[in-house]
């Protein structure tokens, strides 16, 4: 809501600076976004009168003007404009002046003739012909008799471009503040000044409105009140300057006196007004009713709209003439030959207006106001004001009487006046008298123990609402700051502790944390080569996405990780090692919320990394959280991954992690021109199987015995299998098995490999004898021989 200061001053006497006004209003609850003095960019432009006009000797279109700017000597200015005559008073941009758009004007020569400034058009003042309808847009602005034509005065003063416009952010609970009067009431209360109310007065005139118009409300649930008045012999013309000026300040373009009056009243009272031509109203009867299914209307914007039964229309006996609270019909609009008009001041149900406006995809100033629930008691004063303005502007002849079809609830809301409750709720100590005084400043009356809520404050429903009124005028800054008392009893959950462990471990392992969007494109599933029938393609789908790229909630974080790897690769970053702890969303049907499964996703590329770097990081994590005794098995059939370089980590039958080199086809889809590695770890598995219970093991007191063993086996025998057999055979005295060599080559038969381990054994209670160590190793060798894994000689 843009507020004109001139207009505001009609209702409250204020003598504070614009800045102070903005600050204080903000602190009392009407948030000021910005304020600006009109024409503040203009500088040194004054009024001047053309004293003489002469053709430029070297130009067939320029004129040399002598201009009287109220000084001893006239100044000479050259202009190319053709609309001037001697005696015209015009804006003169003097030497060293600034016009609209910031352009600086200095004196100079135009084709050899000295010019000491510039004569200005409306555009050069930042105005349009809407502001001064009598001026021509492509010529110099010649000031009319609605301007102060004293010579040599600041142009802004002369033409009324001197208002201050304050922009307020009005929250949805305060539609009353979408008006000059509403904001004036807030300003009066803020600065403790009286609100100067105005009661519109309409002079008695001819005729009887009831002979020209009838109104019937068929759906009182959706239309609380409909007030109508008729104006005959309409004289459509431009509005006076003061009205145009105020509309302009509030951001509304002046059109003609009738349209301007409806807008003026809407801005002043906050009540939307509609004016329409009576001759197009069949039988001169207005019926407020539900639309019939499939009924159509062409609205003022020229678009034909098909209506449905939940929409409310203003109709005559045959057809809709307006969509109630949203927009009027095109053909009943005000035309140049309009003679008799109806002014409508009505009140419609908020949600209903909102639904209609949403369904039609048509949001208007009126619908935006109605949907916040307006005050039905405001209809009549607003209509009276419109009629008063008609008479003031001589825009037509007001027909006697007003039709008031009033179905509104007149019951005034009351609340108990409980100053102590307010004090204890807010934490202040404000006397009952002071609280009463605050409430009365905003027209909330207190009678004994009862608060009477005015009809325009529909938002005051509960004592908490009253408390806010007290608090904001008492001043939020005056409420004491009390440190929070009571017993604090906070603890991290197991999951929160685990998140910390995972994050710190990954960071320590050299992985950088990323944050990616939870939604992806469904095409991502193709890019990671997910099979057509994969259940992971069944995403939570956003019904109104911004675009395809963010249209489904991911069922896997892998595409997000690959996107980030790809971006880094294509930004020519040499390497990247990344992780994210985030959710995957699994659709469970419309009656249940999706599962949100937390996953650790790791991704990396770069010359220094390979599959085993990634595996190392995952195993490091398992080590930290205390997951032991897992199996690592090759995974050959996940189409996202390299079939020969991918593993799953299992605890029993449960897969808790997948680690792999990304399939070349997937890399290609993501335009990653190097090998990349991705792993996922199920966070819930870490929580479930992680075991941070550790007990200290005594440091060894007796020496260890080591044996290096080298075996030859088929080349596809997994090393882990051999390790497990050795471990089992050596038994309790085993301390460590370390692989130190894998060899394939000329020294051993084709199709075989050699693997070498160092096996360290130790007993906790004695020094192992060589015989013990040898016998343990022998057992292992014997077991392996059964599987054709032989000791290399």
């Amino acid at each position, binding site marked *: 809501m843009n507020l004109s200061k001139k207009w505001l001053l009609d209702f409250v006497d204020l003598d504070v600076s614009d800045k102070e006004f903005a600050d204080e209003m903000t602190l009392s*609850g009407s*948030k000021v976004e910005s304020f600006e003095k009109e024409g503040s960019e203009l500088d040194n432009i004054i009024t001047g009168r053309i004293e003489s006009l002469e053709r430029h000797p070297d130009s067939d279109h320029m004129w040399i003007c002598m201009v009287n700017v109220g000084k001893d000597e006239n100044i000479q200015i050259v202009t190319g404009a053709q609309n001037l005559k001697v005696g015209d008073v015009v804006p003169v941009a003097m030497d060293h002046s600034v016009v609209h758009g910031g352009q600086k004007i200095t004196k100079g020569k135009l084709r050899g003739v000295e010019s000491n400034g510039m004569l200005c058009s409306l555009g050069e003042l930042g105005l349009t012909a809407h502001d001064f309808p009598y001026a021509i847009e492509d010529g110099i602005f010649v000031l009319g008799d609605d301007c102060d034509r004293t010579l040599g005065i600041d142009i802004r003063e002369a033409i009324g471009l001197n208002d201050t416009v304050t922009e307020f952010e009005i*929250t*949805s*609970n305060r539609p009353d503040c979408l008006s000059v009067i509403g904001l004036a009431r807030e300003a009066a209360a803020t600065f403790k000044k009286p609100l100067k109310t105005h009661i519109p007065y309409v002079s008695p005139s001819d005729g009887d409105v009831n002979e020209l118009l009838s109104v019937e409300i068929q759906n009182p649930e959706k239309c609380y009140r409909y007030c109508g008045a008729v104006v005959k012999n309409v004289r459509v013309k431009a509005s006076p300057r003061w009205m145009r000026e105020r509309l302009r300040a509030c951001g509304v373009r002046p059109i003609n006196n009738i349209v301007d009056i409806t807008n003026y009243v809407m801005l002043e009272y906050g009540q939307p007004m509609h004016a329409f031509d009576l001759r197009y109203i069949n039988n001169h009867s207005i019926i407020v009713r539900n639309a019939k299914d499939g009924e159509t209307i062409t609205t003022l914007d020229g678009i034909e709209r098909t209506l449905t039964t939940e929409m409310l229309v203003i109709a005559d006996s045959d057809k809709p003439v307006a969509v109630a609270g949203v927009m009027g019909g095109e053909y009943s609009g005000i035309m140049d030959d309009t003679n008799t008009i109806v002014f409508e001041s009505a009140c419609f149900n*908020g*949600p209903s207006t909102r639904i209609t406006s949403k369904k039609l995809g048509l949001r208007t100033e009126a619908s935006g106001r109605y*949907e*916040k629930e307006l005050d039905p008691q405001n209809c009549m004063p607003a209509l009276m004001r419109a009629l008063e303005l008609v008479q003031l502007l001589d825009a037509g002849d007001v027909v006697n009487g007003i039709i008031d079809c009033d179905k509104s609830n007149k019951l005034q809301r009351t609340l108990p006046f409980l100053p102590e409750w307010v004090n*204890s*709720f*807010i*934490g*202040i100590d404000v006397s009952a008298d002071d609280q009463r005084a605050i409430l009365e400043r905003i027209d909330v009356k207190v009678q004994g123990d009862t608060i009477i809520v005015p009809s325009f404050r529909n938002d005051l429903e*509960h004592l*908490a609402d009253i*408390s*806010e009124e007290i*608090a*904001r005028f008492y001043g*939020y*800054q005056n*409420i*004491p*700051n*009390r*440190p*929070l*008392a*009571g*017993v*604090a009893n*906070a603890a*991290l959950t197991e999951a929160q502790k685990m998140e910390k462990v995972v*994050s710190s471990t*990954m*960071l320590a392992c*050299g992985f950088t*944390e*990323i*944050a990616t969007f*939870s*939604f992806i494109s469904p095409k991502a599933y193709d890019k990671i080569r997910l099979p057509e029938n994969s259940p992971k393609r069944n995403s939570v789908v*956003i019904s*109104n996405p*911004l675009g395809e790229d963010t249209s489904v*909630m991911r069922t896997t974080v892998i595409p997000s990780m690959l996107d*980030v790897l790809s*971006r*880094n690769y294509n*930004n020519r*970053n040499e390497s*990247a*090692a*990344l992780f994210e702890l985030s959710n995957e*969303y699994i659709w469970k049907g*419309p009656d249940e*919320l*999706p599962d*949100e499964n937390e996953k650790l996703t790791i991704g990396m590329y770069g010359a220094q990394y390979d599959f085993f770097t990634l595996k190392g990081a995952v195993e490091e994590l398992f080590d930290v959280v205390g997951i032991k005794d897992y199996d690592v098995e090759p995974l050959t059939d996940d189409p996202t991954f390299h079939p020969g370089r991918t593993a799953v980590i299992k605890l029993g039958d449960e897969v808790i992690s997948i680690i792999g080199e990304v399939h070349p086809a997937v890399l290609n889809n993501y335009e990653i021109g190097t090998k990349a590695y991705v792993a996922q770890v199920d966070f819930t598995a870490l929580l479930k199987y992680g075991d941070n219970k550790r007990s200290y093991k005594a440091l060894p007191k007796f020496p260890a015995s080591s044996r290096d063993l080298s075996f030859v086996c088929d080349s596809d025998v997994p090393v882990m299998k051999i390790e497990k057999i050795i471990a089992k055979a050596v038994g309790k005295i085993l301390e460590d098995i370390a692989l130190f060599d894998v060899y394939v080559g000329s020294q051993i038969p084709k199709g075989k490999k050699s693997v070498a381990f160092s096996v360290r054994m130790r007993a906790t209670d004695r020094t192992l004898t060589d015989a013990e160590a040898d016998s343990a190793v022998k057992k292992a060798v014997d077991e392996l021989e059964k599987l054709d894994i032989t000791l290399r000689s």
Partner: protein
Amino acid sequence: MKQQLEEIRESAKSQLSKAASLAELDTLRVKYLGKKGELTAILKQMGKLSAEERPIIGQLANEIRADLEASIAESVEDIKQKLLEQKLKSEKIDVTLPAKKQALGHKHPLSIVLDEVKDIFFGMGFSIASGPEVEWDYYNFEALNIPENHPARDTQDTFYITEKMLLRTQTSPCQIRVMENQKPPIRIIAPGRVYRSDAVDATHSPLFHQIEGLVVDKGITMADLKGNLESFAKRLYGEQTKIRLRPHHFPFTEPSCEIDVSCFRCGGKGCPMCKGEGWIEILGAGMVHPKVLRNCGIDPDVYSGFAFGLGLERLVMFRFNIDDMRLLYENDVRFLNQF
């Protein structure tokens, strides 16, 4: 013989003083003190001496032996010291050569600030709660006193899944979920992802993070709200920080306010960061609306509470002078490695 001994001492000492290596010293030691050394050779002739002379010469010989041994030891130390010095000198490195760094990972800036905020509230006794990101309309709106067709829904452009299911537009539904499951006293924060249908630009993102806060107990007032959030601001931005409350409207709190902190760059004098205002808005807050308490089965005549919400991206962008929100989600390592 006495003279012989003194000569030995003289010559040994003079040679010792010239010795430049441990090997030379060893040779000298053998030459004079060894089994076949000069001193030993003299001592072997002791038998020829008279009974009177023997103890005198014996004493002198022992004295000279001790003297030489000490000298040798001293020279050994000297030479060792010299050798060490030489060695150290030769081992000199250019300490300005590049360091061999451990490749540590970098925490995402969102996590850095979130962890800080969590720690502050944890220290003030707030537990950390969470709730689903795909949420029911009821929790995101209705239970928060934003009924269907309420104009307040306009301020939060919502992604819908079904008519009843949506991506939460705020972390406030966590308030409802906590109050439904926990009886007062309640003191929680609930950080998380929220979603709004805003196209991506420097200051907007369809996904961002909020941190919700909720305190419910007997006798909680707006003074508690102010005190608590001022403590938070001071811990986040320093003791000199002030807060300013401006009345505002949220459907689920009453009274409601927006909270500014004095600009942490200029201290309130006005600078480009605070757009000359001296204040930077960081919080929305208010007393929990009685309707909301009642929706959760908490009697508003017995309990009261306050709630607040913070936008994490905003805090992060201010903290690190980040001027484009997109950087946070692009995850370029050249960006991330700066934190």
